[in-house]
């Protein structure tokens, strides 16, 4: 429903509520009519103001911007020949902003205790000659700011934050479940609305899908440890994401 749709319905409910209330009180002397009129007035007021809560950017434009961002990242990765999986870093390791580090070499060589020297696109994370990588923003980086409070540390708090973000605020899935066993975090999204265009293969291999990136960023932030996307398994309107804590 578009912004104007909410406004139209809100005004219609307010007008009909006022009409029903006035008619019931003044002409019909009907208590059920008056109660219905008040209910319609309250409902109309809420629907009317909810029209202002809809985003000013259209979903189509938001999708275009997302694909443009992914396309630019894919071109950069292809140009540099990078295929290693991104390491999602919490804000505490990354100068206050959670980001994804794409190492130039294989992620198996990356030390467990990471510390970014600078918050730059090309950043050094260790003293080794190949201890350099790309430090990029992902959809997860931006979504953390949408949470009303910070990310919790327990698995239950993480699951609640993920559910609120993906199923509530962003409205990307119907439900999200998160489980952790021996440093391996499994996130199962159900009711995933399929995007017509998936990100380019290079981005899928390194950064993962937007839903996986959100889960990885949230887990990294909650656990305060770097996280790698192990795998993504697509099902019928579902997505299973496996994350490994480093």
């Amino acid at each position, binding site marked *: *429903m578009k912004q104007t749709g*909410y406004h139209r319905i809100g005004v219609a409910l307010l007008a009909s509520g006022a009409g029903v209330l006035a008619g019931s*009180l003044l002409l019909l002397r009907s*208590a*059920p009519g*008056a*109660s*219905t009129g*008040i*209910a319609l007035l*309250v*409902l109309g*007021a*809420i*629907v009317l*103001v*909810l029209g*202002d*809560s*809809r985003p000013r950017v259209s979903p189509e434009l938001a999708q275009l911007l997302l694909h443009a961002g992914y396309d630019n990242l894919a071109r950069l990765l292809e140009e540099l020949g990078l295929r290693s999986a991104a390491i999602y870093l919490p804000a505490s390791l990354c100068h206050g902003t959670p980001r994804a580090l794409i190492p130039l070499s294989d992620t198996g060589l990356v030390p467990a205790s990471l510390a970014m020297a600078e918050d730059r696109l090309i950043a050094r994370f260790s003293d080794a000659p190949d201890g350099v990588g790309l430090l990029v923003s992902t959809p997860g980086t931006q979504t953390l700011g*949408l949470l*009303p409070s910070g990310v919790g540390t327990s698995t239950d708090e993480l699951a609640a934050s993920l*559910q*609120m973000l993906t*199923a*509530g*605020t962003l*409205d990307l899935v*119907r439900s999200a479940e998160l489980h952790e066993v021996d440093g391996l975090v499994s996130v199962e999204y159900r*009711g995933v609305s399929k995007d017509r265009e998936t990100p380019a293969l290079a981005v899928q291999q390194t950064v993962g899908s937007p839903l996986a990136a959100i889960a990885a960023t949230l887990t990294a932030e909650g656990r305060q440890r770097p996280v790698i996307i192990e795998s993504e398994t697509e099902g019928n309107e579902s997505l299973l994401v496996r994350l490994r804590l480093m």
Partner: protein
Amino acid sequence: MINESLSVTDRYIVALSALLLGTSIVFAWSGETRTQVFFSVYLIEVLAFNQLSVMMSRRARACTARVERVLVVCFAILVLWEIVRIIGAM
């Protein structure tokens, strides 16, 4: 099927509509005639329902909070009116 195609805000509106209009049916069935009671019950329902709607975005919750404030002011006016009426009748 319908649930999957609706956004969080749409589902909130549908659920709130069902709650308020369902309550008006209960009022009609129970024979309640006091307008103040209608308004008070609807206000409590809206406040409680908004507290339970944790899935809504911050912007949407800020918008509904505006309506809540107006409803609470109306409720306070109703209470004052009742107090004046009771004192006047004494």
